[in-house]
């Protein structure tokens, strides 16, 4: 907290405040920000710079002294390696599949929970559980008790439909990961979309009803356009997080069978922590970061469009007031 004004009575503080310069006021306001800002820059920004540097070196941790400048070698080997393109494809399919599915499931849940009915609070509480349960633990349970071909619950439930002992994790590996990720992220989408639904002006819907619009019409032409920016927000935030999917792949398929579920983060993990190839892993890291920045730029734009805080904006340091005062002081001195 700003510590400059210690235990001085209000009058004294006022007098002191009146005499401080714009530069002092700015420094005083910036002070409390600095610890968090410096910490964040050091811990989160520096590693990315170092990753970029490493990506130009040929360096394997298993061979001490192997570190030498290789310029773009890592990029050429990463970009010509078929495993990177296959991982990119898996990443895109997994992200697109899980984002679309979780937005749809989330939308259905949000619309259902937006109505008042018996036990609505309980339903909402049950629905957010998948998002809170530790993903590593949930993934292991999906792999075993849920999806095991012989003893799993899923095949037991589906058996009346004629589904036999399907081994989901090896026969449909990507679908399995997408399902588990959808289960995890649908509550997240539901919460965002529910926020959107509850911010909608009900009197407009009432007016539409008076004008004898059907439920579908008022959903299609009033609610959906209103929800659009919330859906966009869910899609971009979901994409940013689901691109990074690691827990479920590690726990359920280990990237397999073959490389059918090896996405970019898992490939990077293998390069860095199974092959200990620092250079190539760093080059892969740079590829992932570049991909993420493209989506993140879009996300930041959406959020900044939705974000307004006039109250805080009104509290911004009044530069003109300080300048006027300083000019007056200068005139007085002259």
């Amino acid at each position: 907290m700003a510590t400059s004004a210690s235990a001085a009575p209000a009058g004294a503080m006022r007098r002191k405040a009146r005499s401080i310069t714009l530069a002092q006021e700015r420094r005083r306001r910036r002070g409390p920000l600095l610890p968090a800002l410096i910490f964040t820059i050091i811990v989160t920004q520096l590693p990315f710079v170092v990753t970029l540097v490493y990506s130009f070196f040929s360096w394997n941790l298993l061979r001490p002294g192997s570190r030498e400048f290789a310029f773009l070698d890592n990029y050429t080997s990463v970009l010509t390696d078929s495993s990177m393109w296959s991982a990119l494809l898996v990443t895109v399919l997994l992200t697109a599949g899980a984002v679309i599915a979780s937005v749809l499931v989330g939308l259905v849940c949000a619309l259902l929970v937006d109505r008042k009915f018996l036990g609505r609070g309980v339903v909402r509480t049950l629905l957010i559980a998948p998002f809170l349960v530790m993903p590593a633990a949930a993934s292991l349970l999906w792999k075993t008790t849920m999806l095991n071909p012989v003893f799993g619950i899923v095949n037991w439930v589906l058996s009346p439909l004629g589904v036999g002992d399907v081994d989901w994790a090896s026969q449909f590996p990507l679908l399995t990961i997408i399902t588990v990720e959808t289960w995890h992220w649908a509550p997240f989408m539901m919460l965002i979309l529910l926020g959107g639904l509850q911010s909608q002006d009900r009197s407009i819907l009432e007016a539409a009803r008076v004008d004898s619009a059907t439920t579908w019409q008022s959903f299609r032409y009033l609610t959906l356009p209103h929800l659009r920016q919330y859906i966009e927000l869910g899609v971009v935030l979901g994409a940013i997080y689901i691109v990074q999917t690691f827990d479920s792949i590690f726990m359920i398929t280990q990237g397999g069978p073959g490389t059918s579920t090896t996405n970019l983060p898992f490939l990077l993990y293998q390069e860095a922590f199974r092959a200990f190839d620092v250079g190539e892993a760093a080059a892969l890291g740079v590829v992932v970061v570049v991909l993420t920045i493209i989506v993140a730029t879009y996300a930041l734009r959406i959020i900044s469009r939705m974000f307004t805080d006039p109250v805080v904006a009104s509290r911004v340091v009044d530069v003109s007031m300080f300048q006027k005062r300083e000019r007056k002081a200068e005139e007085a001195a002259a």
Partner: protein
Amino acid sequence: MNESRMVGTSKVTGTILSALGWIIALGMFFPVFWMVLTAFKHERDAFTSPPQFIFKPTLEQFDAVLSGGLTAAVANSLWVTLASTALVIALGLPAAYALALRPVEKWQDVLFFFLSTRMLPVVGAIVPIYVIARDINMLDNVWTLVILYTAINLPIAVWMLRSFMSEVPTEVLEAARVDGATLKQEAVKVLLPMIAPGIAATALICVIFAWNEFFLAVTLTAVRAQTVPVYLVGFITSEGAFWARLSAAATVAAVPVLLAGWVAQRYLVRGLTLGAIK
């Protein structure tokens, strides 16, 4: 029934929609329910076809996992989670104060800088983090995770705390100042009590993310500093025989945070969308 939303629908449709809500909710929740149920089974009851819903419950599995390494992992997880959350709040409160109550001209840029750090993928930074941690002997050390989890949660905390603080009416703070309160008194006696629920919600959400984090934990810790999700990795290979035991370990891992999330659910959206939606 919410009349304005349920335009032109009959009572029957309403009942069907309510039933559908319940069915989907129970379906989504089922894996969690099944985890807790299986945790109380003997292994022979866990491994049956068809699955057993009625059985003689036992605490045997909890005994086994808690005496076999899970306790140490829980202790590590607790330490990492609580220490990083405390640090996050300590760093986040002053920053949020500056951004909500005494903003500089470029406050929005600072805010969005924090937000952008939360969006960059951890995999892009893991290589140097690992190499540096190795070089300074910080591998398999809980403090490495404390520092990294603080960095991961700080943007969320700054955004959430800021949004709670900006809701405190300017008049309240001004009134305190007129009554002769100093900045420090104003912050501690007036502001803190008003945003206490917000601080609690922020802390709970940081706890959830720190407790559940897997990628950094599995790459940077081994035995000594292993957290709960890393402990669970041991079940990947032994899954064939120990479903009930796995479920017991997963229950211990998941339930505390599930409860924390339920307590904070009113504020969950704000944390997840980094304050974009209140």
